[in-house]
């Protein structure tokens, strides 16, 4: 699905800057993401890809630029309605779930915050949707595997029925076989619920698999934006992207002097 210029973008970012003390983590980034599109942010550590995602979620200090959701520009404060429409899944399922809360309580909290009734049914449905089933309701995070925890984190994001999901390296802490299961689950959910995805990853293969378009980032700025088929066919214009592509193909003996 390509960006449709006729409709209002689900997410529109213009000249976004993020500054920590004197360090400019994000240096004027602009992008548009269409409704139901899946968009990837790729880059190495320190490229600003996670900062961009966190800035959208209101978790990073924006010093300039604008973020608009469905055409409405967001203020510095995110209201409750924003967090119902936009939810985030973090990288580390060991750190993002409260260790002393049961799965039931973890899933009930967003419902309480947003005043959603019918909690019982929604919790069971959310657990079914992520392939865990209601048998997991009264377990603690330490009783779950990494993949199961990430499924709980996804269920928690979905339970308030958002339209945009922000995914920060959702599978990089998981084993390859578990990664495949979680990626399949995310694709299934996006199809079923017509969601918009913004996904951060250092893994080009994961991003081209999951996303329609992507932006390559370096040093807090855009290197280039391209579609996944363009990347797969090596139709890239910037040297940095070429290097990143080559590096993702593994080690070749020529590289050693």
């Amino acid at each position, binding site marked *: 699905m390509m960006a449709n210029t006729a409709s209002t973008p689900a997410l529109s970012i213009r000249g976004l800057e993020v500054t920590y003390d004197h360090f400019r983590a994000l240096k004027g980034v602009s992008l548009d993401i269409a409704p139901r599109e899946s968009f990837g942010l790729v880059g*190495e*550590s320190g490229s600003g890809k996670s900062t961009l995602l966190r800035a959208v979620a209101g978790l990073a200090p924006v010093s300039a630029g604008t973020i608009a959701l469905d055409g409405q520009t967001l203020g510095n404060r995110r209201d409750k309605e924003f967090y119902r429409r936009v939810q985030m899944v973090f990288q580390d399922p060991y750190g993002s779930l409260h260790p002393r809360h049961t799965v039931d309580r973890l899933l009930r909290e967003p419902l309480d915050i947003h005043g959603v009734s019918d909690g019982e049914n929604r919790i069971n449905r959310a657990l079914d949707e992520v392939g865990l089933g209601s048998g997991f309701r009264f377990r603690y995070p330490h009783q779950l595997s*990494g993949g199961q925890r990430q499924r709980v984190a996804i269920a928690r994001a979905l339970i308030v029925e958002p339209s945009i999901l922000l995914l920060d390296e959702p599978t990089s802490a998981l*084993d*390859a*076989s578990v*990664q*495949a*299961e979680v*990626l*399949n689950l995310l*694709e*299934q959910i996006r199809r079923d619920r017509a969601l918009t995805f913004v996904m951060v990853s*250092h*893994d*080009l*293969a*994961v991003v*081209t*698999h*999951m996303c329609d378009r992507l932006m390559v980032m370096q040093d807090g700025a855009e290197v280039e934006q391209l579609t996944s088929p363009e*990347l*797969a*066919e090596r139709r890239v214009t910037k040297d940095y992207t070429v*290097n*990143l*592509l080559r*590096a*993702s193909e*593994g*080690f*070749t*003996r020529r*590289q*050693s*002097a």
Partner: protein
Amino acid sequence: MSAPLLEVQNLAVRFPTRTGRVDAVRGVSFTLGRERLGIVGESGSGKSQTGRAILGLTAPSAQVTADRLRFDGQDLLTMGDAERRRLRGKRIAMVLQDPKYSLDPVMSIGRQIMETLRTHERVSRSEARERALAMLEAVQIRDPKRVFELYPHEVSGGMGQRAMIAMMLIAGPELLIADEPTSALDVTVQLEILAILDSLVRHKGMGLIFVSHDLRLVSSFCDRVLVMYAGRVVEEIAARDLSQAQHPYTRGLLNCMPEIGASRHPLPVLERQAEWAR
């Protein structure tokens, strides 16, 4: 050919726990010459415990047994702790995953490298310093004099890992065990580190055991690969023949990774069979 550098026969590592015995490694056997051997597996497959048992770094609560565990003809199982310590760092060295945690945070990089050298060889301070600087240069640190004085928190992950490798190689080990040496690093840095390891291993004729979860990376770097599952080696294969792997676990693991340019929706998932763990 002379005796192999390392012989491992029927190695087992067991941890007694409150809920019963956990068999982390169950009967692993292989021999290693001056070559690059990859050990691949997912979390809990026993790959790291295999590397640690060879080095003698298994937790004290665990039980390590083997029919044979010999390094250069010496029996590691009956060797005393002091002798084992002399071997470790001198003739067998280990590079760990994350330099943030495996370097001493309150000692400058140069002093850490000198300490390793002076533990194993009688050399003067000035000679140790010379050799540490030369080693930093060998791992392609552009300004060794500056990095020598820095503390681990002042350098990037890639630089830290180079320092770690310099420290491990300074005493001239014959066997290097690298446990996920590049997993905490960016892809482009990862390749630089591998290139350094590759050329050092080749020029010094070292044996290398490369432990990793990344099957593709390992097969592009090593000569031979052991694939571990639930504490056992389920397949041993020449790296270049990986695409013809026989074991369903190896094939499943290769198959479930997304690939640039391949459109497979949904991705094939690994159907674990009970008999793989036997």
